[in-house]
């Protein structure tokens, strides 16, 4: 029996400190520590408010689409959910094992072959040798990479990287799956296959949070749509 999973954010704020090249220098810090003159911006470091007062509860079985323009905070929110960014204030509580497909290399080492990357990623997922061996064949099959699986990942097209990453990440049913703009890279046929796999996965009661620009896709595969504008949740509706 799966443990109950849930995501709760309360009044979460994320601010990024922006370090100018001179602000990052040790000399500057040392000088100000030594009582040197206070330079503009020393007291008030430049910060960008990426997420502003986010209150969000996502329950088991919800498929959430994050919609919003570039820079609206979709990816930052996903990273908070992945546990990467700790909010400056507010609370984040995540129960369940998180799998995330966030950056373009999707956690793969370009120098390693596809097969080695499979082994590495499964290791990160906490799989042992026998489990890895058992899963590898189905991953290779689902990714449709054929003999490319023996080639370094740097030789892959972005669509191929995506196929492999998606196949690995969904090979073990994760509790919580986070995805960022992934659908745009795959071709039509793989997209259908991936959507089908996602559907069966979410039917098995997980949580899916995906950031996308594709309103159609959001309506097709999600049951909750959150619109973000300038780091604030503007609209949150269930469909």
């Amino acid at each position, binding site marked *: 029996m799966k443990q109950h999973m849930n995501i709760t954010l309360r009044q979460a704020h994320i601010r990024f400190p922006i370090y100018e090249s001179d602000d990052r220098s040790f000399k500057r810090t040392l000088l100000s520590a030594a009582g040197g003159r206070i330079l503009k911006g020393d007291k008030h470091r430049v910060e960008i408010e990426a997420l502003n007062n986010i209150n969000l509860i996502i329950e088991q079985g919800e498929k959430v689409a994050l919609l919003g323009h570039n820079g609206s905070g979709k990816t930052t929110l996903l990273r908070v959910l992945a546990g990467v960014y700790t909010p400056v204030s507010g609370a984040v509580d995540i129960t369940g094992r*998180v799998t995330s497909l966030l950056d373009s290399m999707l956690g793969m080492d370009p120098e390693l072959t596809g097969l080695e990357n499979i082994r590495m990623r499964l290791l990160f997922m906490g799989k042992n040798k026998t489990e890895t061996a058992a899963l590898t064949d189905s991953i290779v099959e689902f990714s449709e990479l054929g003999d490319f699986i023996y080639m370094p990942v740097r030789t892959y097209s972005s669509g191929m990287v995506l196929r492999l990453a998606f196949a690995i990440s969904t090979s073990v049913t994760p509790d919580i799956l986070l995805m960022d703009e992934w659908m745009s890279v795959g071709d039509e046929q793989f997209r259908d296959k991936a959507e089908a796999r996602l559907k069966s996965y979410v039917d098995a009661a997980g949580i899916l949070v995906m950031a996308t620009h594709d309103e159609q896709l959001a309506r097709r595969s999600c049951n909750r749509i959150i619109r973000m504008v300038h780091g604030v949740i503007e609209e949150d509706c269930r469909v």
Partner: protein
Amino acid sequence: MFYPQLNSHVAGTLRFPLDDVVHALRLFRIWMALGWNDILARYRRSVLGPLWLTISMAVTIAAMGPLYGSIFNIDLESFLPHLSLGLIAWGFISAQLIEFGEIFQHSAHYLRNMKLPLSLFILRVQYRQLIILAHNLAIIPVLFLILGRPVNMTLLLVIPGLILITINFFFIGLIVSFFCTRFRDMQPVLTSLMNLFFFVTPIVWHPDQLSGQRRLIAELNPLAVYVDLIRAPVIGQAPPVNEWCFALGSAVVLMVMSVYLLKRSGHRLVYWL
């Protein structure tokens, strides 16, 4: 990407550093795989592979030994073991320090994708450097055979020495890596400091060659102590008690410092990348 469940890290408490280290140690299969991959990646497509580590060290020793031996007018039989062990121990220490400085930037794609204990990356560097050390140490039995030099039981002291150094450098690693990620111009400073320290640490020369006050250069240099803890037992001398005490003391001090650092800034590190 999924990670074995971490307890929700409470920023700013003592639990954070403790959880981080314990968790990293538990994920030993990950840092061992990452460390080993680093070595393989460097020698990918080369025929001899990691054996190049051994070869290049052997070449360095073969070239520097006779040259500096004759400059200093010391017989090769005692100079060669001193020099080669010094170079190998120095390589272990300085490479760790330099790699600590850039490890978080190099691991950014992991850190930005999932929550992982920060110590895991320190252990990755240390494991990688331990493998390199093992490759380099393979030269020593050959050298001792050629020189017809016996070994005695003090050799076993190299084990506690290495353990103590590894613990020290784990904490140094946390401090240096945080510092170099936050202040980007520390990396070049670190690199040039290491170049300087190579000359003021008794590797190519012997502390006995210095007289009077100048001897302090060797005695007050902490890196010289770490080098000696590896070198002396293999040569057949037990390291003096004060060196053991220093290494133990520094481990405690560095631990306190790095726990404080993790507690204070551990949850901010990803923002600095």
